[in-house]
Every structure is written in structure tokens, then in C-alpha cells.
């Protein structure tokens, strides 16, 4: 389900809440996540270890003041610097619309937003933040909007990556999402476009520019209704660079207010933008627009060509609608809808081809201007999602933020191509994922060196057999040499020896038998020694021969070895059991 993103992750005993969004479609209690779900009794602060906000869109952070101030939460909230900067502007705007315009009460106040923001801890990209001794988080670049980040949450050796919204194709102002091969146990990814593979952006951009350019050359006016943040900046950059390149003179206006403040932050957070903007900012900050000026109400009546960005994006109210009314009658003009429009709005009506609109007051507005649709979306498509999974190599994937039917398809694909299990829980559903935690064990350097020296080359890809004693003591694991273990535990060493008697038919004297055995074994590549007391040692294995007490023709060979030499010992026994070769001597 899209909107109201809020995910609770319990990892190795830690509880982390990912995003705290609101739902655009509802105006009652359903607009915020149900926080009573987290814990029935007891405070949230006690239960949650931290909250992470991926980016500043309201469906990812809209419920934050409600959550922290009205429900009550006092632990840190993590977000990136740009998100921290822009988020309060949007929250304030949202509050104003709900409280001032719609007149709702029992809503969070400006002060609450401020208090909430005080709890925020800002993080840098790729900075590992220790939330507490065990829990650490790390942000990766996600594209999508300025400051959007993916977060890796790690406790011990278990980790989860939450993508938030991300975009794998770069656009005019932001780069592509990137993550290293961090191999998390679980990747929680959005799946808005689970069943779409998009065309290259260039065609759309080119078309857009061509349309605008043609209209302006004809002397027409172009209206582009936008939402204040995100796409608007992309389109601005697009037009700005185009104007620069083509040496155009027609004015471009941007309706003021919210956007001006936001633009200011775009200027500040250059490091979060794409390569081109980052590289050119030494000469000129691309967000310091040369051609784009602030809009004034009076400009709409100016003669001559112009381009105006106006809010809101669906032409349902406000400035964009006012301008639209003024310009609709002239066929030279054009309106470009850069995004989706909800049913019932003017935007939707004109896009579906309606040419006569009934405005309030029974006025009929005839739309003669051209209407264009141009979609610019900043979510990863199916290929992008797959690409991210390939980059991160998770052991499990969990899909959120999308429609169930579409997710089903993607899930199937992921399982088929990466052979990892994939989950898609519905709202309120809990998925449990078994991990295979590896437990770190300390090993003393001396032992490690000794053991590695025995074998051949150390090889990363193959497990290696080592001898040692595993000691579990005081909540820690150590691998130590047996001698040390004995010493530490105060135990004495016991030797385990195997002995085995082998009967051999040999009428000769004992020492001759021994000599035969010695000659027989000498051929092997062990160090075989004939000791003066009449016994033979092969490495550390002792072999003695005695005549059988009853039958002198049978000699009894006593083979004895410690358990460490089990392999060699049993080999020698079996060798001896086969009998000695018939010596000619």
C-alpha cells in the first residue's frame, strides 16, 4: 500500500522504526499509522531504540510530530542533513493546510514540529552512526529527492537495509542510488513500479524541451503546474540549462512561497546532487537560477512569451488554477502536466480531453490552449530494483510500498533470478526471517600462527581445519591451545592411547621379526626408527613385538598410539594386519 510508510524492525533484540508517514487520502485517524500496534502498554521510548526517516516526503515523515510529541517518543530520530532541513518546512505547510484551511483541531502545532526536530540527529552519507553499543546505522545515497537515503541497520553481524524511495537512473539534478556489496540479511525495498520497465529519460526530456521551446518561439505562454519540491527543481534545472544552451531570452517564473525556501536548501546541499551540478558549482551554483525569477501575480497579464511554474500540481486550486483560467482561451498557450492527476481535479479533466470546463459560479471555461502530459517519475523501475538487489546481494528481500498484485510478479522474479526468499507482508503483518548469524570467536595469535604454519597456503575460499579448545567463559568465546585451556581451567592433561595387538605368523626370533617389520615400514615415507630396546617408532607410534605365550610361531605386535595420531595408527595397524611380505632372507 502506498502512503503512510511505517515499518518496525526487530533485529537481534533491537527495535527500529523506519519512516513515519501519513496517508494523503484520509482526513481522520487513518491518516497516521496506528502506533498502539507497537506496544499496548508502556511508552514507545522504552520499546523503540531509534527512528529512521528516509526522506522528506510527507508519506514518509508526515506523522513524525504526532508520533514524537503527541504519542510520546524521546529517543533520537535519524535523518540526513537535507531531510532535516526541508522536512519542517513541509510539515509546517501540511499543518497550515489542515489546521488553518480545513479548521481541524487536535492536530500537532508549530511548536510540536520544532520540538520534534530537536530530537533529530542528522547523519552524513556513509557515516556509521553508533546508536548504542550494538546498534549502528549507515546511510547510502538514494536519488529520488534531495537528501533521500537508504539505511543499513546493523546489530552484531545481522543487518537490514531499508531503501526508502530510491531511483536507479540519474536525473537532471540528482544522481543514481548506490549501495555497496554489504550482503544484508534482509533488504526492504520499495516496489512502486514493480511491473514497469521505463523508457530512457532522454526522449521525455527532449520532448518536453521541444514543446516548451516551440511554444515560446511562437510567442505563447507555458504553464507548468508542479508540486513545490522534487520534480519542480528538476524541471527548473532542465529549463535553465536549456535556456542557457540555446541562448533564449523569454522569462521563466517560479511561483514564490514554499519553493523559495526549499531552493535555498537545494543551493546549500550541492554534495547531494548529481555529477554535473557538483562539478560546475565552483563556477556557478546551478540552483542560482539565471533565467528563473520569482513570479508575481501581475506578470500573468504581461504580453509576450513566458514560462511559469505554479503550484499546486493538479490544477485544483491556488495560483496554478488562476493562471490557467487566464491563459486557457488562447490556442498559442500551453499547459504541461508533469505528473499524475487525481480524478475530479481540473488537471485530470483536461488531460482526459475535456475542452469545456465548468468553473465555480456556472462559468464555462473553454480550453483552447494545448494540453500536454509529461511524466517524470523518480522511483526505481523493475529493472532498477533488480539492479539494486544485485548490488547489495541480500539473503532475503522484503517488498513494501507498492500494490500487492504487482509485487507478486516482482517477488516471483526475484526468487527465480537471485534464488533468495522474498516476502511481501500486508499492512500490519509481521514477517519473521531466520538468519544464520555467525558468532565471532577470539583466537590467540600464537595459536593461529602455529596452526596456519602447518598447512599449505591460506585460502580464503576454503574452510580450514584447526585444532584448539573452544572456551565459553564470561559471555565470550575464545579459541585457545589445549595447553592453555588446561592451565586456565586448572585441569591436568590426560593422555588417551590406543593399543592394538596384531598377530603375525612368524617362526623367527623376536628381534628378527622386529627387523622385518622395520624393513617393511621403512619403505613408507614416515620417520621410522629402530630403538635399541627392540621396539620400533613410526613418528610417535610405538610398535613392540613379543612372542605369543602359547604359540612361539606367532608373534604379537603391540601397536600403541595417542589419539592425536589416530589416523596414522589405524593405518599402520591395517597395514600390519595384512601381514608382512614374504622376505627372501
Amino acid at each position, binding site marked *: 500500500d502506498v502512503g503512510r510508510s511505517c515499518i518496525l524492525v526487530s533485529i537481534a533484540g533491537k527495535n527500529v522504526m523506519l519512516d513515519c508517514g501519513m496517508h494523503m487520502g484520509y482526513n481522520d485517524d487513518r491518516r497516521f499509522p496506528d502506533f498502539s500496534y507497537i506496544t499496548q502498554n508502556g511508552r514507545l521510548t522504552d520499546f523503540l531504540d531509534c527512528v529512521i526517516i528516509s526522506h522528506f516526503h510527507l508519506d514518509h515523515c508526515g506523522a513524525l510530530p504526532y508520533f514524537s510529541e503527541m504519542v510520546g517518543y524521546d529517543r533520537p530520530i535519524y535523518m540526513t542533513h537535507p531531510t532535516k532541513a526541508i522536512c519542517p518546512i513541509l510539515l509546517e505547510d501540511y499543518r497550515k493546510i489542515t489546521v488553518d484551511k480545513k479548521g481541524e483541531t487536535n492536530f500537532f502545532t508549530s511548536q510540536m514540529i520544532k520540538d520534534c526536530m530537536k530530537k533529530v540527529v542528522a547523519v552524513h552519507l556513509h557515516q556509521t552512526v553508533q546508536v548504542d553499543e550494538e546498534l549502528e546505522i549507515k546511510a547510502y545515497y538514494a536519488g529520488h529527492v534531495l537528501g533521500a537515503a537508504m539505511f543499513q541497520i546493523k546489530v552484531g553481524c545481522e543487518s537490514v537495509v531499508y531503501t526508502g524511495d530510491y531511483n536507479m537512473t540519474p536525473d537532471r539534478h540528482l544522481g543514481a542510488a*548506490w549501495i555497496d556489496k554489504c550482503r544484508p540479511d534482509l533488504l526492504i525495498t520499495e516496489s512502486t513500479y514493480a*511491473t514497469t520497465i521505463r523508457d530512457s529519460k532522454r526522449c521525455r526530456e527532449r520532448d518536453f524541451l521541444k514543446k516548451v521551446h516551440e511554444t515560446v518561439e511562437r510567442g505563447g505562454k507555458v504553464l507548468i503546474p508542479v508540486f513545490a519540491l522534487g520534480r519542480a527543481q528538476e524541471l527548473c534545472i532542465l529549463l535553465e540549462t536549456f535556456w542557457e544552451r540555446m541562448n533564449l531570452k523569454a522569462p521563466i517564473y517560479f511561483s514564490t512561497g514554499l519553493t523559495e525556501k526549499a531552493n535555498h536548501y537545494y543551493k546549500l546541499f550541492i554534495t547531494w546532487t548529481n555529477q554535473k551540478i557538483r562539478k560546475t558549482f565552483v563556477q556557478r551554483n546551478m540552483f542560482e537560477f539565471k533565467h528563473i525569477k520569482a513570479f508575481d501575480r501581475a506578470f500573468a497579464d504581461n504580453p509576450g512569451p513566458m514560462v511559469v511554474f505554479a503550484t499546486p500540481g493538479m490544477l485544483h486550486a491556488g495560483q496554478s488554477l488562476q493562471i490557467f483560467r487566464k491563459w486557457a482561451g488562447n490556442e498559442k498557450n500551453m499547459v504541461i*502536466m508533469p505528473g499524475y492527476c487525481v480524478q475530479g481535479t481540473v488537471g485530470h479533466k483536461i488531460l482526459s480531453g475535456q475542452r469545456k470546463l465548468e468553473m465555480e459560479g456556472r462559468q464555462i471555461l473553454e480550453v483552447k490552449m494545448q494540453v500536454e502530459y509529461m511524466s517524470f517519475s523518480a522511483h526505481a523501475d523493475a529493472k532498477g530494483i533488480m539492479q539494486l538487489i544485485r548490488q547489495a546481494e541480500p539473503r532475503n528481500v522484503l517488498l513494501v510500498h507498492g500494490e500487492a498484485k504487482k509485487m507478486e510478479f516482482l517477488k516471483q522474479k526475484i526468487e527465480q533470478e537471485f534464488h533468495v526468499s522474498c516476502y511481501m507482508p500486508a499492512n500490519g503483518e509481521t514477517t519473521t526471517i531466520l538468519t544464520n548469524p555467525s558468532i565471532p570467536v577470539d583466537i590467540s595469535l600464537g595459536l593461529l600462527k602455529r596452526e596456519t604454519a602447518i598447512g599449505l597456503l591460506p585460502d580464503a575460499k576454503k574452510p580450514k581445519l584447526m585444532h584448539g579448545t573452544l572456551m565459553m567463559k564470561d559471555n565470550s568465546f575464545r579459541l585457545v591451545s589445549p595447553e592453555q585451556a588446561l592451565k586456565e581451567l586448572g585441569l591436568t592433561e590426560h593422555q588417551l592411547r590406543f593399543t592394538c595387538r596384531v598377530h603375525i605368523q612368524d617362526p623367527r626370533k623376536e628381534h628378527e621379526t622386529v627387523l622385518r617389520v622395520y624393513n617393511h615400514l621403512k619403505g613408507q615415507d614416515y620417520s621410522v626408527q629402530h630403538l635399541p630396546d627392540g621396539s620400533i617408532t613410526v613418528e610417535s607410534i610405538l610398535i613392540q613385538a613379543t612372542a605369543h605365550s602359547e604359540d612361539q610361531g606367532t608373534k604379537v605386535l603391540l601397536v600403541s598410539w595417542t589419539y592425536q595420531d589416530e589416523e596414522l595408527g589405524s593405518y599402520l595397524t591395517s597395514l600390519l594386519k595384512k601381514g608382512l611380505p614374504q622376505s627372501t632372507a
Partner: protein
Amino acid sequence: QQQHEDLSTKKLRLTKPSKSAALHVDLCKATSPADALQYLLQFTRKPVEVESVEGVVRILLEHYYKENDASVRLKIASLLGLLSKTAGFSPDCIMDDAINTLQNEKSHQVLAQLLDTLLVIGTKLTENLPVRMRLVEVACKHLTDSSHGVRNKCLQLIGCLGPVEKGLAKEGENQAAKDVQKIIGDHFNDQDPRVRTAAIKAMLQLHERGLKLHQAIYSQACKLLADDYEQVRSAAVQLIWVLSQLYPESIVPIPSSNEEIRLVDDAFGKICHMVSDGSWVVRVQAAKLLGSMQQVSSHFLEQTLDKKLMSDLRRKRTAHERAKELYSSGEFSSGRKWGDDAPKEEIDTGAVNLIESGACGAFVHGLEDEMYEVRIAAVEALCMLAQSSPSFAEKCLDFLVDMFNDEIEEVRLQSIHTMRKISNNITLREDQLDTVLAVLEDSSRDIREALHELLCCTNVSTKEGIHLALVELLKNLTKYPTDRESIWKCLKFLGSRHPTLVLPLVPELLSTHPFFDTPEPDMDDPAYIAVLVLIFNAAKSCPTMPALFSDHTFRHYAYLRDSLSHLVPPLRLPGRKLVSSPVSPTIIPHEDPSQQFLHQSLERVYNLQHLDPQGIQELLEFTIRDLQRLGELQSELAGMADFTATYLRCQLLLVKALQEKLWNVAAPLYLKQNALASAAAKQILEETYKMEFMYSGVEGRQVVIIHHMRLQAKALQLIVTARTTRGVEPLFGMCEKFLQEVDSFQRCFISELPHMQGSFVDKLLDLMPRLVTSKPSEVVKILQTTLRQSTFLHLPLPEQLHKATANIIEPTGESDNPLRFTSGLVVALDVDATLEHVQDPQGTIKVQVLYPDGQAQLIHPKPADFRNPGPGRHRLITQVYLSHTAWTEPCQIEVRLLLAYNSNRSKASTKIPKSAWNESLEALPPSENGIEGTIPFSKPVKVYIMPKPARR
């Protein structure tokens, strides 16, 4: 202390150079490792002569064994490597010692350094196979070392020295060197990524040295593509590429199915996969290599451009496909409707493969990449593949056109160039042309010019296309009038390529009307000229076209044919003679009349040697005038004519200066005559430098003549000085210098001397024994007579001769608005100039700024400021920083381009055989021949500037 000195004396006996002894003493004195290190560092700064290298090495080794501190040993080891690099030193004598040192070494770092030294030794002894084998064996032994640095070096050593020759490899009975590939291959799985990278690099090194790699490595390399480290992946991509070039046709199985494909296709698919790698270094590498895989099957190739689109599980067509469809259905560029891109048929969910192992969409991804480096690499690869496959060229067109709108200018430029390169294989559709033409409004001159070049060689399919192109070009012309020449040239080619498409457009373009006379257009309008250029070039191969012309068009034709002859071709017009001289097939091109004229006039000069001086002077003056005029008329011959005219002018000056009348006058009149003669000598010198360095295509024969002329000028200078200065002292030096110059002239041009019978130098060399012994005053006398009696040398002309020219486009020098800036700070002035026929402009072109107070500033432009738009042409776009103290009112500064030359680098010195040069030149002081100077070669441009006093 006593003992040390003993040691040093002993060493002195062994190896005679004192240098090693000094080092030894130093090292012995050193009390701590830090001291020793300091001594060694000091020692490194001084070069060591070849003879003493061995001695020094011995001493270093001795200390090496004694030394306990690893850092000192490390330094010694690195010094050993440095020393064995010394030219002329054969390091085989120290090899054994170096190998011995390895055995007892404990420190990994020192070991690695020693191996590095061995590598240096080995590379110096590549011819010696046993030595190499031995070194490889040593390296193999140390491969088991636990330090990555040591293993790294070992692999590097094996890669550089491992046996490559097949037969010899078998001979080596020692198992170590038997199969180098296997040894290296075993380290593909090393635990350290650095070692893995080194292993792959070593393998590549072996390949470069000519060893044929086994195909079995392929599967190993494929596994490395999934490595965690980017260096490993990057190197693995290279290795796979190498293998795919070695075994393109081998068959490899596709995992998880029973099918098999060609290795090159499989490798192509794998490399394509890497285009969407996480690291951009790898992406660039992969995208670059894709371009050179030309044996790939076409359906694989075409997949790279195909990214199956879908929306909600339904197949969607790409914008490209839609555009194509629109075009073929006859409707052109309809407005976009919402839902125009509505998805069509349902897709079978099972059939969709989101991450193909194949090449699917590799270029689509590459061209959309975040980093422009990747995008450029992808465009380059597209270009190379399209050049070899016409069908692919057709397909990739849409993508290239899209790249014209990239945000980075370099990428746009690159894609335009790419398109030009493949333009033979393609025809532009109208909608594509539309997008291409939209870029004409780009504010960057480079882009526009590249686009004009592209349009020159594009095929357009319809007459609407031509019309569209013309309209857009005219729009471009009005917006950027400076593009005039480039646009005309573009239209010339456009016209001559598409005569039949232009034909139906002619009435409209000339705005003729069947019944009414239309007003005659303005002949000076660049736009009108542009249209005419298009039409006339089309008319060349379309005889019916002139029938559509109106009267004034013919008049304009005649005018343009004369004024813009390089743009307007000769036409066969009905009822008229051909306006240009008829090119009848009987005349062989190189005998065209103007060239004949040139040769004739030169003949005349050379033949009439024994005329009275007055006659010679007049003839020379006439000929020079003729030549100059010829150069103006015939641009192809301008270089040649100018060159000869300059030569004749020198001769003329010489003749004038030597007129007997002047030299015989009484002492008081010396002054005037001296002034004339010394000015002449100076000018001749200058002109000879111009002749030598400003023309491209000057050959050895001309250089001799030029140098000879210069020698004459110097003789003249000597004579003049001799007559004006009192006392003999200064003359001695001058005479000697002059004689040295004669000597070096003889040495440089010994082979040319036979051709110079009766010339000044010829006579001079005959008199040489006398000259050397005689007094300066006598020398001067001899010179004077020889100079006067010597004959005039015939200047042979080379095939092609072009004068280097420069033209400053910007600043134009017309602005009345002074450039204001605060004094003490700098202001950047954009300079844009075209250079023609300049060789090595990066090294020779300088910008000079002259301030009104006579202060001159010389600026060396960065090499990156030069672009090379075509053969023989260069473009300098640079910024000049100006600064000055405050002025009271704005004033003009002059900006000009200079051509720097250095007579050491002259063509003469490169021509002489090395052996003759080496022995003699060493004796000469280096400065003697190295005259550096500059030739101004562009018109100065004035810029109005105004440094304001700084405000407090």
C-alpha cells in the same frame, strides 16, 4: 674509527671510483639507522657513473648483510633497483647477490622491494633466457609468502619475465617455470584482492608479451567478474575481453541450460552486464571494451539497444518506436496526448527476464549513466560498433540523437562527432533530423561547428528535410552571424549531395513566380548567399535547374563565382560560356596556368643572373609584386607564392645592400649606408626565420637555401660591424663565431653542397684555409668580395607549401566599452583564434599582450586550449589574464599571437645523421646553435581596458 678507514682504503683498491668509497665511509660512520638512511638519501640525489655502479652495489650489499634495521635494508634494496637501471650497466653481475639476499630476508617489505629490484634486473636482461627462468623460479618460490606485497611482486615478476616462447618453455625442466599460466591462474583465488588483481594483470602482461593464453582461463575469469573489489572486476573485464579476441569462435555452454554459444558472444554478454556494475571505474572499462568487440553476432549487438519496456506487465513501445511509427504512417510530430504511450498487449509473466544474462539494454544503461565518463565511453563504443555494422548504425541512431541533449557538453560533442563518423551508413528520418537541427541553436560554438560538419555528410531522405535544414541553418545564421563561413560550407555539401531533393524547392527558395517579377534580393545578405550556395551546388549535377533561375540569379552567380570561388562550383549555364576558365581534360591538373606562371616568373629570375645590378633589382621588384598578387588570387598557391616572394625579397635586400657605389663613398657617408646595410641584414635574418618556421611542408632542400641566406646575412652584418667599429679586439670574436657557423653549416648540409656550385658558401669553403689563418680585417675583405661575386641560388619548390596563419576571432577589437576591473586584480580576456598550418601549436603558439606603457606579457596557452577541428587547422580558445596598476582613463592594449621557434629544433638538425652529429656537437657550446625567438603572425587586436583604482 681506525678500522673504518682501513676498510675504506681496502675498498678503494678494489673499486677505483672514490664515490663508492665515500658512501662506504658514510655508511660506516652512521651510528643509528636514521643516520644511515639519511646518508643513503643524500647519496640517491647524485647520479652515479656507469663505471662505478658495480662498486657501489657491492658496498651496498655488504652493508645490507650487516644491517639490522629493516627500513635501511629497504632503502638499500630500492637503491639496488635504481642503480641497475643505470644506462649502460649490465646487471647480471649483481643478480646472484640479489637473489642471495632474498634467502635470509625476514621483513616482507624488504622482500617485496628486493623482488622489485629483481624485476628491474630482469627487464634489463630480457634477452637472457636462463636468467629470466631463474628469476621466475625465485618468484615462484616466494609465492607462498604470507604478505600480499611479496606475492604481488612475485606475480608481477612472473608476468613480466615468464617464458613466452613455446618451445623454450618445455625445455625448462624445472617444474616452476613450466606452466606460468597455471601458477598465475592459481592466484586468481587468492584471499587478498590486491594479489588477485596482480594475478590478472600478470596474465594480461603475458598476453601483451605474446603468450597465447589458455581458453581454460575464461571460466576462471568469469567468476572473478563477481568479485567484491572493483580493481579485480576491472582487470577481469579486461582479461575476458582479451580471451574473447583470442578465441572468438570457441563454443561455451550456457549454465543452467543445454545450449551453447560462441565465446565472443558470451563474453560480450558478460561485459555488457558489467555496464551496470556498482563501480563507475568498472563501468567505464566495460563500456570502452564493448566498442572493440566486432565479431559479436548481430542479434546480440542489437539487444544492447533493446530494453523491453512494460507498464503494469503490459508490453509498451519505446518513444523511439512510436516516433518511427508516426513517421511511417505519414503523420509527423503530432502533439502528445495523455495515454499516447498506453501499454498494449499483455506480457507473459514467465517470459519476462528482468536481469538478463545477455546484452540486453547495455547501451541504454550506459548512455543513461550517472557519470559522464561512462556515457562518453558508451558513445565511443557505439561509434566503433556502428562503423563496422551498418544495420547496427541504423538502430543506434535514435540513441545518438538523444545524446545530443546531454547535460555535459563533452558528451554532446562526442555524440555529434560519432554521428558524423557513421554518417555514411545512415539516412536521417525527418523527426531525427528535427532533433538534430534543434541543437543548432546551442550557444557553444564547438557544438554548432561540429553539427555543421555533421550536416555536411548527412544523407537526408526528403525534400522537406532539406528545407527544414535550410530553415534551421538560416535561423542559426541570424542568431550567430559569426558562423557564416561554416554554414555556407555546410550548405555547399548539402546541396551537392542532394541535387534532386533541392530541385523542387528552387522556385520557393528563390521566391520566383511564374507571372510576376519579384524584387531582386540583396546580394550582401548572408542568408541569401547561403541559399544560393545551396542551389548552385545542387545545380552542378542537375542540368535542368538553371532553367528555373531568373536573370538576377545569373548575375549573382557570376559575382559569387568570383568572390566565393571555394563555395560556388563552375556551372554549365545555357547560352553562356562557362564563367570560370574551362577545365578541359587535355590539361593535366598540375600544369594549371597559375602554377605555370609562378614557375615561369621564377625561371626568369634565376636565368638572368648576369644583368647589371639595376636590372636585377627591377626584375626582382616586379617578380615580387607579381607573386604577391598571385598569392592573393589563387589561395592554393598562396603559400608557395609567399614563400618565394620572401626569398626574392631577401635577395633583393642583399643586392641593394651590396651595391658598390655605396661602399666606395667617403667616410662621412658611411653612416647612412651602414644604417641601410645593417637594417637589411637584420631584416634578412628575420625573414629567414619566418621562411624556416612559418611554412609547413618545407623540405631539407629549402632549409639549406634558407640557412645559406642567413649565412649571407650574417656575413653582411660582420662586414658592417667591421667597418664601423674601431679596434680589432671585438672583431676577433665575431670572426671566429662566423667561421664556426660556416663550419657547422658545412657539417649540417654536407650532402647538399654539390648542388650549390658557385654560391657564397661554396666559394667561402674554398677559401677556408686562408680565412682561418688570416687577420679579421682581411677576412672581412674576402667576405665582401665573395658576397658580391657569389651567384644567386635557385630555390627549388616543394610539392606543398602552406603558410602558417592565425586569425584572432575574439576579441574583435571593435568594442568601445572598456573592460573595467580593479587594479591589482586580474581580469580574464577570452581569446578565440583559428590557426592554419601550424605544426605543433601546443609548443609554439604564444599569446602576447602589449600594454600602452610598453610592458609586454607573454602567455603560454595550456595544451588543452587547442582543438583540432580538421587536418592542418587548429583552434585556440583560451583565457588571458590581464592586470595592471590603476589608469586614469581607459586605454587600448594589443593582443597578438606569436610563433615561437628555436633553431635547435629546426628541421636541419633533425635531418643530419646521428653519428656525425654526436661526436662533433659535444664540443660545441649548446647555446651557439640555439637561437630562440618569436615571429608575430597574427594581426594585433586592440582591446579597450580600464583598471580602476581599488576602492578603500
